[in-house]
């Protein structure tokens, strides 16, 4: 490890690159947030300046919060995201465990079949999904979204989790069997805690696309009662007039919960990675 102590120059360069990248990545978010605190005129006149005493205004937030349904949209998005993640992780981990742990006829084929879903985007099947939902009467329910997102997330979840579960030592599972654990308990009490970092990875991968999705809420659950936040924010975007204050405020608020979830999972992620590396 001759390069363990890098020169100051290299360190500065590395930080510079990372800082530039961070600025580029955060810039749009920053613009959205500062403009959500400005008056309409200020947004258009000087979109890049910070709000001052003249231009500061909470009108956007007032509009959003007065619109009573906003909290409902918020709640819908939360239910759909958390529900989908729960089912993706539960069923994904169970399928991955079966594929990784048991030898049975068609194990390989089953794995390939599940992996196929990674390559084929689920949106191709939108029409068929809509027909199915209409027939089962699930249109305009949150279940429609949860089911679709679960299906969408499962292939990658199974793929990642089964790779991790194969690394869990057989002896450990056998020790569990001798200690009198049922296969379910081995799964829940031995294997799941050990693949927690992988679960966090899968959760993070799936969470953001689900939270931000506009496509399926628009098609499967556009009713007032089931609108998600992303869809709900669209009411402020009209054909002729767009209430930018409200749109920007809604988007700013929408960032918060997903950020909170991310912090929860990413801490797991980092802990998992470091504990694995040090061994």
């Amino acid at each position: 490890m001759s390069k363990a102590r890098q020169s100051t120059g290299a360190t500065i360069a590395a930080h510079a690159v990372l800082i530039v990248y961070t600025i580029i990545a955060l810039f749009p978010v920053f613009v959205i947030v500062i403009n959500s605190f400005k008056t309409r005129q200020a947004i258009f006149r000087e979109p890049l300046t910070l709000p001052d005493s003249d231009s500061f205004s909470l009108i956007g937030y007032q509009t959003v919060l007065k619109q009573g349904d906003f909290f409902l949209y918020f709640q819908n998005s939360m239910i759909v995201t958390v529900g989908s993640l729960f089912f993706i992780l539960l069923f994904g981990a169970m399928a991955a465990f079966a594929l990784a742990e048991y030898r049975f006829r068609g194990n390989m084929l089953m794995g390939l079949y599940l992996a196929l879903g990674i390559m084929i985007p689920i949106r191709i099947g939108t029409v068929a999904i809509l027909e199915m939902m209409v027939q089962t009467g699930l249109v305009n329910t949150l279940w429609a979204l949860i089911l679709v997102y679960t299906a969408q997330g499962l292939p990658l979840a199974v793929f990642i989790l089964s790779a991790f579960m194969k690394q869990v030592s057989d002896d450990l599972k056998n020790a569990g069997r001798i200690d009198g654990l049922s296969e379910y308990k081995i799964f829940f009490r031995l294997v799941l805690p050990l693949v927690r970092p992988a679960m966090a990875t899968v959760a993070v991968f799936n969470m953001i696309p689900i939270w931000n999705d506009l496509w399926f809420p628009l098609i499967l659950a556009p009713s007032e009662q089931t609108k998600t936040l992303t869809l709900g924010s669209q009411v402020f975007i009209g054909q002729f007039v767009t209430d930018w204050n409200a749109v920007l405020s809604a988007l700013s608020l929408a960032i918060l919960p997903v950020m909170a979830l991310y912090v929860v999972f990413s801490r797991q992620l980092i802990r998992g990675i470091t504990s694995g590396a040090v061994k």
Partner: protein
Amino acid sequence: MAEVTIRDLRKSYGAIEVIHGLDIDIADGEFVVLVGPSGCGKSTLLRMIAGLEGISSGKISIGDRVVNNLPPAERDIAMVFQNYALYPHKTVAANMAFALRMKRMDKAEIETRVARAAEVLGLTPYLGRYPRALSGGQRQRVAMGRAIVRNPQVFLFDEPLSNLDAKLRVQMRTEIRELHQRLSTTTVYVTHDQIEAMTMADKIVVLRDGHIEQIGSPLDVYDHPANTFVASFIGSPAMNMIDTMVQRNGAEAWVEVEGAHIDLSARSELEDRQEITLGIRPEHLTLSDTGMSGKVLVIEPTGSEIHVVVRMGGKDATAIFRTRHPFKPGEAISLTPDPENIHIFDRETGQRLT
């Protein structure tokens, strides 16, 4: 505590049979070591006793129960694994208590049992630690503690020492042996290391390719190997094997090996021109003027003794000396076998000729 009886045990994967009808009797309190080269089926056999591997045909009983179809947890066994298999997310105490908690045992009883096992194994200061904060030897002890607290009828060990360094291995060997003397629980121990087998076992079972080659006490197996495989597998350095042919003239029988005349008249069953393999342990070779002649190839001093590899008529033989002769590579020496300790095997079948 219980005896373990194995009758005509077989295991096949598809059409391939890997265990071919084994019969083993393990007495109550006995320490039995299953030993053999990789792929001989010793671990499979252990896992079949544990119930982790199905049985194709035959019968395994522990005590007076046939356990063929019982799940591992109901066989009243405890197993120690090669890589310890400690639950990494549980503390030492929780690891040891886990099986008992699964049985819904009384909390106070669990605590006394864990405390006692920790005491026995010197783990009391580490009860609150996680496995990752322990050294290899300590982890091994926790794995044993987990087995002890259950107070099972049979202990199963699957190469428990092979992940430890040489010094620790010797130390743990003694500890396991001592533990067995204290608890005298029936124990089945799998290893590929013949020294572990010799030093620890009451009874050794030598396996090869799913067959039993020999069952006996360590010294019995060492002194009377049943065939050339056991003879060369048990003992280090390995027994010297010399292919030769018997010459008989009336009551006199002998072989000529590299200029040495070795008298075998005591073995009246040997016939003229019979093809045999002589087996001579390295420690049963002594220097003499009339022995088998060869050239010194390599000298390996171990401190307490000197191992000398000698090239004799195209084959290498090893001799052990406890005195420090100043051997030099290339030096011509001649070695005589101790006539009391010559093993004779049929060259064709490899079986011992008594």
